[in-house]
């Protein structure tokens, strides 16, 4: 008989080596996440996938599933903590949704909708992060970076180009473009690279296609992220 654990009171089977998030998804249960992607090892940075196991808060993307464990995920307590994490992400950057091309297709925004976040609540940082529009096909707006490293991992592990990296620490952490000039135009990034298409927020945007789909008809306008993500395995 396959081993199993309890996820919000329901039995979830798992294979040896699977994390809580992997096993839960395989069983059809969505756990909110931003930095996790099925094609890459867990990163554990956004903490949106936090669940409670035996009274402890753990990142479900990195925590291995174990026989008989009781996992709490979709509870008022855990969702309130996820909402607070989202609120912190919103105030640490400049997330002006009405002026963002990614609005409606943005996973950060979609999670805020799903978790009923109506306000960022905390004082805003309003950081100063100039955009890089030097590349002919791709625009970088650093104001929205949440440091998930998906572009870094995609560029390194799939595209084989190492175009992006994270530099600095704490409040000084920032996305770095690996070129002597620091400009995207001086890298080998191409618009069809995975790194140019994986950003869950509106940092890496393709030029000349913004607003092609009207507001109201975009991905998460149509269905919540918890439905969309389970259908499309992202």
């Amino acid at each position, binding site marked *: 008989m396959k081993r199993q654990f309890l996820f919000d009171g329901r039995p979830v089977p798992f294979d040896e080596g699977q994390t809580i998030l992997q096993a839960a998804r395989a069983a059809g249960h969505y756990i909110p996440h931003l930095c996790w992607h099925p094609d890459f090892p867990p990163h554990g940075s956004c903490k949106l996938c936090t669940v409670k196991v035996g009274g402890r808060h753990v990142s479900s993307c990195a925590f291995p599933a174990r026989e008989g464990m009781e996992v709490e995920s979709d509870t008022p307590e855990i969702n309130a903590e996820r909402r607070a994490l989202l609120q912190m992400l919103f105030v640490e950057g400049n*997330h002006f*949704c*009405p*002026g963002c091309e990614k609005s409606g297709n943005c996973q950060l925004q979609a999670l805020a909708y799903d978790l009923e976040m*109506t*306000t*960022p609540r905390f*004082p*805003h940082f309003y950081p100063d992060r100039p955009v890089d529009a030097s590349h002919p096909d791709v625009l970088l707006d650093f104001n929205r970076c949440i440091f998930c490293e998906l572009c870094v991992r995609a560029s390194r592990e799939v595209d084989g180009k190492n175009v992006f990296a994270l530099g600095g620490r704490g409040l000084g952490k920032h996305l770095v473009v690996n070129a002597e000039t620091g400009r995207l135009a001086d890298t080998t990034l191409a618009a069809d690279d995975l790194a140019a298409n994986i950003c869950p927020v509106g940092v890496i945007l393709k030029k000349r296609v913004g607003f092609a789909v009207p*507001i109201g008809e975009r991905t998460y306008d149509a269905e919540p992220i918890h439905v969309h993500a389970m259908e499309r395995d992202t």
Partner: protein
Amino acid sequence: MTEPSAQEKRPEPARLRIATASLAGCFGCHMSLLDIDERIFELAAKVEFDRSPLTDIKHCGPCDIGLIEGGVCNAENVHVLREFRRNCKTLVAVGACAINGGLPAQRNHLDVGACLQEVYCYREGLDGAGVPDDPELPLLLDKVRPIHEVVRVDYFLPGCPPSGDAIWKFLSDLVAGRTPRLPYALMHFD
């Protein structure tokens, strides 16, 4: 002549008083309030409007609900916002500017003095002009702030602007004494 029935004698319930104001915003949220269309008659039967651009009353008195659109960008905005907080039992931040500063806050990474110089001194055709300094002009703040960074806010109604349907759902809940809640389809930041 017949006596009026008990139901006819019953006094009308006191109507809720609502005040609205626009701070650093575009009045789009007020336009959206008008987008509730004919439902405004249903609303008018239940509420009275105090200070509002719709009534042109300049200062609000004691109110049940205060709706504020726009962020805080100058000293007058602070004054108006504090007057609302003092007078309104329930204060609602309406729209992106009131909630996170919105479009006006996109000047926040710039020096406000340099902004004024750029607009009033260095543009072509403005030879000899200077930054307006009439004492009646409210002093600009160095940053545009969402209203919850200045006063306590009870509820937030997101959107740029929130749709007429979202405003209607929100106000209907509030006027009926329910905790306002937007269904997924009405929850938008843009």
